């Protein structure tokens, strides 16, 4: 079998996506509902939507009580969570738990939780970074960070053995996972993620983030969101919120195309204190690990 047919065969398996669970029933309608202007959103309706899935609702409460979401008094109901944290935070939490539930249990020896930790870390950094540079929609930035590696979940479900090969290569060589995927599979999680994002009918900007967060196209409509995610992803991969292994390289954010692209829309990026953002990641690391242990590894 040639490399091309092998890639085509793998991609057709991904396209089938038979094994992968569908987006949790609650989240599709919730996502679409949240696309409305904030003033039209109804707290009770959101509470009812999340409460339909009891397991998800319980996880949401656990997460809402984490310092990651900035609440210091005990939250014991979804309604308190929404009133205390706001609609945006609670929907962030619901989406995060939803993504966690998509991760398969058996993944040929790879610890799948590292990918969730990474995605949650990128989401938090995206939101924090977005606020600091006055990016217009920090909530969207969080969601984009959370979902950017959707393709890894697809690969874990559909091609566990082949993906394991790519993961082992990346870990042994200390290279980025998408480069190893390209070598081992002939495509990356950006392509497989796009298929799932299309199937889930995610909004156009999120689909583009999933597709292009490792290869930002020139003059793209959603370039600044993609760039924001790409830079946050890089920061996390160089810290303890990586993909479970160390990339042996030096990253100069100022030389990234995404840096120049983001600086065009958000001039604050040029004078941004990257060192401080990097040090702040330390807190996320501790809190993300604590949260994941509490929710997932019980």
């Amino acid at each position, binding site marked *: 079998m040639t490399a091309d047919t092998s890639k085509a065969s793998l991609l057709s398996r991904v396209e089938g996506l038979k094994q992968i669970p569908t987006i949790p029933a609650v989240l599709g309608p919730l996502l679409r509902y949240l696309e409305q202007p904030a003033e039209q959103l109804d707290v009770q309706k959101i509470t009812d939507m999340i409460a339909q899935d009891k397991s998800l609702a319980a996880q949401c409460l656990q997460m809402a009580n984490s310092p990651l979401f900035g609440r*210091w008094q005990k939250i014991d109901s979804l309604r308190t969570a929404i009133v205390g944290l706001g609609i945006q935070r609670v929907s962030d939490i619901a989406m995060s738990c939803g993504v966690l539930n998509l991760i398969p249990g058996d993944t040929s020896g790879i610890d799948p939780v590292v990918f969730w930790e990474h995605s949650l870390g990128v989401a938090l950094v995206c939101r924090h970074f977005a606020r600091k540079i006055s990016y217009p929609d920090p909530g969207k930035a969080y969601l984009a960070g959370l979902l950017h590696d959707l393709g890894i979940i697809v690969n874990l479900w559909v091609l566990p053995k082949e993906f394991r090969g790519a993961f082992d290569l990346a870990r042994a060589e200390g290279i980025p996972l998408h480069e190893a995927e390209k070598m081992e599979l002939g495509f990356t999680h950006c392509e497989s993620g796009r298929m799932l994002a299309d199937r889930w009918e995610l909004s156009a900007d999120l689909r583009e983030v999933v597709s292009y967060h490792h290869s930002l196209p020139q003059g793209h409509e959603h370039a600044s969101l993609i760039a924001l995610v790409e830079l946050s992803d890089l920061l996390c991969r160089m810290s303890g919120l990586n993909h479970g292994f160390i990339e042996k390289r030096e990253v100069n954010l100022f030389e990234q195309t995404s840096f120049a692209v983001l600086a065009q829309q958000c001039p604050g990026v040029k004078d941004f204190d990257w060192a401080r953002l990097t040090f702040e990641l330390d807190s996320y690391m501790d809190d993300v690990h604590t949260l994941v242990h509490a929710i997932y590894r019980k």
Partner: protein
Amino acid sequence: MSTAPVRSSAAVEGPPDPDLIRIRDLVYQVAGIFHPDSKLRLLQDRCGRRMKELKVLTMREYFEHLTIRPTRQTELVSLLNEITIGETYFFRNQPQLDALQQIVIPKVIEAKSKLPLKRMRIWSAGCSTGEEPYTLSMVLTEELQRRLKDWTIEILATDLNERSLAHAKTGIYGTYSTRHLTAYYRQKYFTPNGEQLEVQQAVRNQIAFSRLNLSDDARMTFMKSLDIVFCCNVLIYFDLASKRRVIQHFYNNLLPHGYLFLGHSESLYGVNDDFRLIHLPGATAYVKGERVQAGKQAL
């Protein structure tokens, strides 16, 4: 499923005291050392020690001691001393050392590959009692068998304090400094000396200790042709103008491919625009903004 609140064990319980956050920001602004939320308890503890000394009861009042009172400069130095106390020990920042070994050394070798003189010059600026330069010497000695075969290593170790330097030159250390040494390094590079450990001669031979004031512009000019500078928890005591001068000297003294390492959570933000922050796995460093190929500049 339990819905018990999830709290990071490292975090301060309850919302952080706004005055503690103001002190965190002040320390970062003045000294360039940042305490992320997970380290706020440490900062609170260090402030607490000073507050006890001053018989101050609230964080707000202590913030005033640091900002309004006539003794604010002295108090700030006292707090910084508390923050950095006990920071000197062997293998203090392992991710930084791993990045040096796995990424920076290969990059320097590559940059100098076409040069006839295989020499790596490293400066430990503000070496205190010597744990940092000896650690670097051990790490580089390991590389002499591998990537740095046929290379000469020079480690310049300077400090302002004569007593610290005298201690450094003895190469004898107690249990506190050596607590993070692995059995491998302990056995290979140290000899027991009573209750203490003494650094072996081969490690010492690569280091030249000397007294240097980083504010001495004339002498700073002569620290030339450096590949890597380590300056950890030293700049925090300098005012902004002095800090800028010292950093500019580092910039001028480093070769085009050179690297500057600062202490953990230490930043050059607002101090210097010529250096560029880079990210290494689990560590940060600074490189020259416009890096050019080694060899184009006289070495």
